[in-house]
């Protein structure tokens, strides 16, 4: 069986267009608060802005980005010890452990490069990635009901999960 080989590097500006394509995918979009094209552009802008801080990692297969993990270090001293992160894997590359690989590297970056002691995430009910986060020791600390309202009228709860580094 052919083994997929990935490498990891800091995200570069051109990765933004791959991320933009992943965000267009309906299943992916279900797990994020954005929906309209202008919202996707706005989210992309705020993520790409993090790249020069070296707060984002891209998983590469060959020369192609296949996943990304982003931390959002706080600008304020009171919150500087912890932060939120986002993980996303290209729809056609899911189920290949890329998410696990990225998460290990992202936790390492958060702890050793940014000196963080805690990471947290916000995820929506039913997202298969919850299993990954639980496996990595993230614990659910809040359930925020009806946080998202899909255009169909369906509501999704938001889970907040955290772990020490």
């Amino acid at each position: 069986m052919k083994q997929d080989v990935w490498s990891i590097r800091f995200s570069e500006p051109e990765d933004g267009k791959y991320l933009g394509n992943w965000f267009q995918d309906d299943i992916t979009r279900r797990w994020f608060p954005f929906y309209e094209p202008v919202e996707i552009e706005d989210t992309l802008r705020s993520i790409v802005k993090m790249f020069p801080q070296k707060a984002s990692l891209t998983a590469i297969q060959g020369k192609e980005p296949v996943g990304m993990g982003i931390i959002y270090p706080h600008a304020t001293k009171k919150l500087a010890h912890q932060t939120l992160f986002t993980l996303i894997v290209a729809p056609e590359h899911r189920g290949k452990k890329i998410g696990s690989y990225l998460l290990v590297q992202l936790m390492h970056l958060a702890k050793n490069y940014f000196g963080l002691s805690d990471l947290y995430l916000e995820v929506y009910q039913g997202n298969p990635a919850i299993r990954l986060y639980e496996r990595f020791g993230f614990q659910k600390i809040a359930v925020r009901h009806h946080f998202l309202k899909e255009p169909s009228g369906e509501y999704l709860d938001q889970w907040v999960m955290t772990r020490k580094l």
Partner: protein
Amino acid sequence: MWELLSSYQIRYTEKKDLQQVRQWLKDPETRRGFPFDEDEVADQFLLGWEQLTRFQASLTVVQEEKIYAVGAIFLMPYRKVAHQSSLYLIVDKEHRRQKIGSLLLNNLIELAKTRFKIELFQLEVFEGFPILPLLGNFGFDIVGKHPEYMRDQGKSFARIYLEKFL
């Protein structure tokens, strides 16, 4: 007490009212309820609040031109979260525990329901902050706790998640 409260007026917040909020935020005790200490971050926060005044999503409690409290509904900019909202609320330090916060909160809830069709509030408040009992009285439920979310003067404070369906 309610008779006294009737002498206060509530109006939409004007941009100049935020100068008073800026002053209140300089007080260390007031600022403890907010996740920042840096003036430049406070300025960014107030810039966001100014946007809310343009949508008439912010209310000010006044009596004879003096500002006693300011509160705002934080309108969510994305379609999938536009049905819910957060709140900001600051009462002048010398006039707390006089039901001014209740008066303002009551009006913000009505404004959220009637003008902005908000279905629920999702709030984040720091542990031990005096607004927590007030929110409890108004039917906000605690739905989570993020331990050690904020560090201030050598102490850690949890972030408390609250929600209320309107």
